């Protein structure tokens, strides 16, 4: 292991690594992110190892396990360089063919290539696939070139160049100015200007200061930070060292969820490697600057992502927010000035220091610069992680990158910002991705969850889901948040059960008002967002539930019933066989089946199993079902 003693050593090592890797060797990169591992990409890797050895190609081919590529819908993903051929949905049994065709003979295996949804054409190169073509992958691009377990990979791909630059040619103030000028804003949700936050901690009158990485990503359906930390831990680490240098901190923490075992493992390994190389510890790269990092594993609470709660947890206390009329940037961890930034924010720092603030400012909108990673999930064809420049419209993300809504259904809304965010209706889809534009629309950027909802989604039920999540994930400390959420949940429960009362919506709004001004922490203050935004954009759905006892989307179980269209019924009996409550029987002397409404639990199993050519099971209002009996 080479210990790097000067900034020039880093660049020398990079040169050596790159020279050793040049030549005509092909590189097979297999995605080993959590999504692809679930599709057994480890078996694909093992099969490649076997096949490459078997066919005597070991000298000409390099095999690399990398972090997440983002197109998780179609994993496991394999990319072959230098051609950039991208195979999707690779299975163990496909490997032999890929090795003998592509690696040995340079021919593509057409059946494993991406097939364009409209034209049916096969697309070979990764950059040409629509999912990737419309993205701007500043942070995620490195995932494809780096084995997260190898610091050499990171350095060869240009890693730690920013640190070498800062320690050789920049004073701490210069690094701080660069970040301030870049107008980088916190990617964890609030969008607070990162430079200003750093400045506050730097200027706080205390010798001991801390820098902390917030990797307590807990939003349902979001995994941006996870993928960065799993796929490229050194990028976060480099950002953290740069931040510590700018702020004047000598100790840092990575607060990472215990539920992300791969992220924990890769981070710990990265720390060890950085220490061995002399990129952490005393006298980093001969500059005299000392800094080291600890990893704190979170015990699994959504609320611990809140800054004061997170710091309490690191101190060994219960991870609950405390009133903070003095910012944690001034009085945080052990009452010392503490700069807390989210994983994605830290990962942006090396890019800014390397590329310069002017380059970074060239991307995005007036007040939101750079790119943002979203986890695009829900009712969308191409689910996965996408990174787009700020200012791209939601429509472009959902349709150009996401490929639209499956089964030709209409889009109803997108939910952004996680449980504290809100819904944005289809009519506002041309809204740009921008901190302020999303807040104005009643939602927020949040950490980057983007859930697509089609017309089969009930907005009252959606609000209920998020309120239920928050009611159980709030710490329960302050009265407005705990009791307010309990009552909001009760009201939403009765509305979705068809027992809503006139005035319920106004009561909900009153509780929303209270939480916004009176709750103790940001979780409580933003908790009303799901309710408020659904009322604002979908008031008619609330009214339909309360006044007409009707769920327009046909979701709320008490407000729907299933019946069988006797004309369409083929009398195949599939529904009766699969009904878990035995509610479906054959009508006596007739060629069709009927549903006993008293036994039916409206689970929807029958809809799933009814043959597509029949589609005999229909959703109706409960009264209509009674009448047909």
């Amino acid at each position, binding site marked *: 292991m080479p210990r790097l003693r000067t900034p020039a050593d880093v660049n020398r090592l990079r040169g050596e690594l790159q020279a050793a890797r040049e030549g005509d060797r092909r590189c097979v990169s297999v995605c080993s992110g959590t999504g692809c591992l679930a599709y057994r990409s480890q078996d694909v890797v093992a099969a490649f190892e076997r096949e490459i050895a078997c066919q005597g190609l070991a000298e000409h081919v390099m095999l690399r396990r990398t972090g997440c590529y983002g197109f998780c819908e179609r994993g496991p993903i394999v990319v072959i360089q230098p051609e950039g051929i991208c195979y999707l949905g690779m299975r163990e049994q496909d490997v032999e063919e890929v090795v003998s065709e592509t690696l040995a003979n340079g021919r593509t295996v057409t059946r494993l290539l991406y097939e364009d949804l409209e034209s049916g054409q096969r697309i070979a190169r990764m950059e040409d696939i629509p999912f990737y073509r419309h993205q701007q992958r500043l942070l995620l691009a490195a995932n494809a070139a780096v084995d997260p377990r190898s610091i050499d990979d990171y350095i060869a791909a240009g890693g730690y160049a920013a640190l070498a630059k800062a320690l050789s040619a920049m004073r701490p103030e210069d690094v701080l100015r660069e970040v301030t000028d870049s107008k980088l804003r916190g990617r964890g949700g609030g969008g607070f200007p990162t430079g200003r936050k750093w400045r506050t901690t730097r200027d706080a009158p205390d010798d001991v200061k801390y820098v902390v990485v917030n990797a307590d990503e807990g939003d349902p359906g979001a995994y941006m930070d996870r993928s960065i930390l799993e796929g490229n831990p050194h990028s976060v680490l480099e950002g953290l060292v740069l931040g510590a240098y700018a702020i004047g901190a000598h100790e840092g923490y990575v607060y990472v969820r215990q539920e992300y075992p791969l992220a924990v493992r890769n981070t710990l390994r990265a720390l060890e490697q950085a220490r061995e190389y002399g990129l952490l510890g005393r006298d980093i790269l001969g500059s005299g600057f000392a800094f080291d990092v600890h990893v704190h594993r979170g015990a699994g609470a959504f609320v611990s992502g809140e800054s004061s709660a997170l710091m309490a947890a690191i101190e060994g206390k219960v991870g609950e927010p*405390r*009133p903070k009329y*003095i910012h944690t940037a001034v009085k945080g961890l052990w009452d010392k000035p503490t700069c807390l930034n989210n994983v994605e924010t830290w990962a942006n720092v090396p890019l800014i220091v390397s590329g310069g603030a002017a380059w970074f400012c060239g991307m995005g909108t007036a007040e939101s610069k750079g790119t943002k990673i979203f986890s695009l999930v829900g009712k969308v064809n191409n689910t996965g992680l996408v990174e787009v420049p700020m200012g791209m419209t939601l429509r472009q993300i959902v349709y150009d990158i996401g490929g639209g809504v499956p089964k030709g259904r209409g889009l109803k809304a997108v939910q952004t910002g996680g449980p504290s965010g809100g819904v944005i209706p289809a009519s506002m889809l041309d809204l740009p991705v921008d901190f302020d534009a999303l807040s104005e629309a009643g939602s927020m950027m949040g950490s980057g969850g983007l859930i697509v909802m089609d017309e089969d989604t009930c907005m009252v039920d959606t609000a209920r889901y998020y309120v239920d999540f928050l009611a159980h994930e709030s710490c329960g*400390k302050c*009265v*407005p948040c*705990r*009791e307010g*959420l309990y009552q909001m949940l009760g009201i939403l429960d009765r509305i979705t059960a068809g027992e809503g009362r006139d005035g319920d919506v106004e009561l909900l709004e009153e509780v929303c008002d*209270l939480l916004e001004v009176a709750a103790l922490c940001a979780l409580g203050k933003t908790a009303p967002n799901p309710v408020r935004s659904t009322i604002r954009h979908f008031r008619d759905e609330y009214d339909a539930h309360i006044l007409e006892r009707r769920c327009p989307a046909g979701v709320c179980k008490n407000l729907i019933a299933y019946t069988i269209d006797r004309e369409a019924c083929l009398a195949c009996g599939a529904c009766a066989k699969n009904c878990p409550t035995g509610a479906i029987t054959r009508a006596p002397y007739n060629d069709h089946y009927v549903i006993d409404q008293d036994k039916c639990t409206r689970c929807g199993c029958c809809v799933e199993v009814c043959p597509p050519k029949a589609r005999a099971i229909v959703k109706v209002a409960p009264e209509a079902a009674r009448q047909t009996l």
Partner: protein
Amino acid sequence: MTNPERTGYEMNMVELEINGQRVSAEEGTTILDAASAIGIRVPTLCHDSRLSASGVCRLCMVEVAKGGRSRLVASCVYPVEAGIVVQTDSEKVRKVRRLILELLWPSLPDLAREYGVTSSRFRPRDTECSLCGLCVRYCAEIKKRQAIYFRGRGIDREVAIVPELAKECAMCRECFPCCTGGHIVTHSDLAFT
């Protein structure tokens, strides 16, 4: 609450305004301290001057104007600042207190009546405990036992007694007078056996 580590000679005073009166208060103390020093009563539930402030009941919220902007803050934890203008009973403040009292109904009936709350539009909770945490803090900070603690999270949060220390609790009972809702007293037999 005054900071015991501070001694007279390094005391810094700040000037602020509460309900139209000019007040001089020691730096590091709270708005609640400053208000009570001049006889202005701010309702509280989770506050006890013997214990650390927790700022959770939010009944003591007051309106603070600073630099042309006003916002609601919990006066029991907000440190006094020079030049701030505080209103302890503005319409915004009363509205918040009314709704909190309605959420806590039927606990604190006297205070509720003072704010015109005589019933609640909300479904009742099945406990008298308002989770003010006075007993928990008393046990930890004065008794130094930590026999009582918060269990669970969110709407499932509750006060519980460490089983191994329950016998001791039955003898002690010092936290009983702290209890604002009467929960500990009512359920003492249940919890302490």
